[in-house]
């Protein structure tokens, strides 16, 4: 059920394939089917910015269907930033429209001869000239396409100047700031001369049992809106994490040199933002939370600037990580990244990186076109974004991705970037949360908080609760290593499934115990497809998706030596109520061993043949 369109941009042709029930049964949809297709179609020799790279766009099995937060759509390709698996997802309204227009997945190959955008509607895909969009930012592009095609309900996912100019960590933007952010999927679109995908559909999605779906939907609505923590999500959104990392002492400070800031910092409380800047809440398709903030800057040099955001990644990333305590600066930087189509995760990490390089004298104003990179400098934070877009000063190097930039700078500059497998770590410091540290080291797209991070580790849940939730008890204390391999594994499963279904993880048990979990997913899948999966079958699908991603990495030469936390995690936290906490190497290695065993991988992190056979993956192309 559902359709994949193989789109060849060079010849402007489309080949359509029905998605077999078997493929759905093995991978469900979304990130699951994306991973399966991508693994078959690219290899070690594929240049991420070459025409042979493949961009797979995949709406979830439930995306666009009546239910809670069925909004997500995944974009996968070989990453131009890391050279490994690239995969990111966005919410908003684009995914649903793609499905209503008649397509669940797009496999985009080749390179268009000139800039184009895809116009997808009524079961057809048209190739439209995009050259008139060449000076526009992401918001203007979307408005222009709606005007040109005369329909205000068209939903667009597009790249901005960053993607068009070949920045390797460019992202894909939809709406004001919904983003398929990490791993440079916008760079892949740019390299293909594909500037936007516009979708608008009026076709009903097939539902096996609409009455059952209605009841399931109504029940899930009551369940999530009455969950403890729903209210906090609907007021603070991801700024809950801003609050937690600051009060519990695990924020990243000055490029992860510290785990807490000493600048005073009342200004950076979420309360201040909500009070001074927030105007309205915004949401994605099917979600009652409305976790997103709309804001307006009331005075100062950015007076009148309005956007949607910021999320925690920007608050911590330009805040404590860059020593900045000005909301206005953070909001302007956020706004620019949304308009230019630049990944906030990488932009903030690169900013903090070069600020430390500047502090240590490894780079000077000569390298930065005269820009001083003092900690906390608004001029530096905004100036660096402009330099990246314009590819001048230090931006010329940063646009190539930090790995190439570090090679060009030399002088051991790479030692100051905290990353896993080439992707920078988030703006928090999880050495004291053992399951989260393990997740960081092993996540299949590099350091990632959305695939393997056991969020619940921060909430001190009693063992009876975690046993009920995951099937096995997980120690209450974040600093304990025992049992944390199971927490990480469970998280990988629930995230893989949520991403394959297109359900936003903010409405799942990944965030809070009372929200949607495997049982609820099983109910929704049954109502939509008629197939009732068991819990074991769900876990197996999650494992299959994750293992396919691991095979992608194995093929690229990734082994145990790359499943590591940043070096500084082995040193103690200097600040905060848990100062003194560090990763103990021996305990971490044993944790990693137990984790590999759970997955059925060998001691080097390579999936064993019998584990692959169990998942039906033994025939996948391999080394």
């Amino acid at each position, binding site marked *: 059920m559902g359709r994949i369109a193989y789109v060849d941009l060079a010849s402007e042709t489309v080949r359509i394939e029905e998605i077999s029930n078997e493929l759905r049964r093995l991978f469900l949809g979304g990130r699951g089917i994306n991973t399966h297709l991508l693994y078959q179609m690219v290899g070690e020799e594929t240049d991420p910015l070459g025409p042979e790279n493949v961009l797979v766009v995949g709406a979830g099995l439930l995306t666009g269907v009546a239910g809670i937060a069925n909004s997500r759509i995944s974009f996968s390709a070989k990453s131009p930033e890391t050279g490994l698996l690239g995969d990111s997802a966005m919410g908003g309204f684009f995914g649903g429209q793609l499905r209503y227009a008649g397509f669940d997945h797009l496999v985009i190959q080749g390179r268009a001869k000139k800039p184009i955008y895809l116009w997808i509607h009524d079961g057809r895909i048209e190739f439209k000239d995009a050259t008139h969009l060449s000076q526009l930012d992401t918001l203007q592009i979307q408005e222009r396409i709606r005007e040109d095609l005369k329909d205000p309900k068209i939903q667009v996912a597009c790249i901005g100047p960053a993607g068009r100019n070949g920045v390797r960590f460019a992202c894909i933007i939809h709406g004001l700031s919904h983003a398929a952010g990490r791993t440079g999927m916008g760079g892949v679109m740019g390299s293909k001369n594909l500037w936007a995908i516009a979708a608008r559909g*009026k076709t*009903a999605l097939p539902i096996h049992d609409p009455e059952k779906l209605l009841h399931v939907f109504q029940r899930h609505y009551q369940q999530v809106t009455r969950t403890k923590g729903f209210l906090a999500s609907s007021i603070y959104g991801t700024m809950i994490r801003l609050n937690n990392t600051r009060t519990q002492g695990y924020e990243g400070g000055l490029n992860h040199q510290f785990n807490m800031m000493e600048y005073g910092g009342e200004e950076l409380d979420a309360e201040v933002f909500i009070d001074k800047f927030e105007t309205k*809440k915004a949401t994605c398709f099917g979600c*009652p*939370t409305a976790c997103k903030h*709309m804001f307006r800057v009331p005075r100062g040099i950015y007076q009148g600037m309005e956007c949607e955001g910021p999320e925690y990644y920007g608050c911590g990333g330009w805040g404590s990580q860059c020593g900045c305590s000005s909301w206005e600066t953070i909001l302007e930087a956020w706004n620019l990244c949304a308009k230019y189509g630049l990944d906030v995760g990488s932009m903030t990490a690169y900013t903090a990186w070069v600020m430390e390089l500047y502090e240590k004298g490894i780079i000077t104003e000569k390298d930065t076109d005269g820009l001083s990179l003092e900690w906390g400098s608004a001029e530096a934070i905004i100036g660096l974004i402009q330099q990246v877009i314009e590819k001048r000063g230090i931006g010329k190097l940063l646009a190539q991705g930090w790995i190439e930039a570090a090679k060009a700078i030399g002088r051991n500059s790479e030692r100051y970037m905290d990353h896993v497998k080439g992707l920078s770590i988030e703006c928090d410091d999880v050495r004291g949360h053992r399951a989260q540290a393990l997740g960081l080291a092993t996540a299949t797209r590099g350091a990632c908080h959305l695939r393997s991070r056991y969020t619940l580790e921060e909430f001190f849940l009693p063992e009876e609760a975690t046993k009920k939730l995951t099937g096995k008890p997980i120690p209450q204390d974040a600093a304990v290593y025992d049992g944390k391999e199971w927490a990480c594994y469970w998280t990988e499963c629930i995230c893989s499934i949520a991403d394959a279904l297109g359900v936003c993880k903010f409405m799942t048990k990944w965030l809070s115990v009372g929200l949607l979990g495997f049982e609820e997913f099983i109910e929704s899948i049954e109502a939509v497809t008629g197939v009732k999966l068991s819990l074991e079958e769900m876990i197996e699908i999650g494992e299959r998706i994750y293992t396919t991603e691991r095979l992608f990495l194995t093929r690229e030469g990734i082994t145990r030596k790359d499943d590591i936390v940043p070096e500084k995690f082995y040193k103690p936290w200097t600040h905060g109520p848990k100062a003194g906490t560090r990763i103990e190497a021996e305990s971490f290695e044993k944790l990693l061993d137990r984790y590999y065993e759970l997955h059925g991988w060998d001691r080097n992190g390579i999936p064993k043949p019998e584990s692959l056979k169990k998942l039906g993956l033994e025939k996948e192309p391999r080394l």
Partner: protein
Amino acid sequence: MKIASEKCTGCRLCESVCSLFHDKKMDLTFSRIQIDPSSENHYRVRVCLQCEDCPPSEVCPTGAFQWNKATGGVKILEEECNLCGLCIPECPYSSVFEGDGSVLVCDLCDDRPKCVEVCQKQAIQFA
């Protein structure tokens, strides 16, 4: 029905439940409540407000467009409707819609409107 469009976040849970309940399918185009974007994250809600003075019901030549005394709302009797479409432009709130071989208007789900139950921001309310 009372609407406060400024509170609407565009989640479309109302459109979803309406189309599922009435048409037994997942098709927002034919929902009896329509959420129109006016700009990014700003929406206009269109749904029948059960006006005392109802122009669409007055112009209906067959009497299909009627008041339903039981619910206090309106209802289109499908078997009487001749699809002339004269009612559609008469609604001052543009809340009578062209369906697929039918004319659509909110009938309060014949009892308690389901959209109100899933509107977290209370952009739509029913006394």
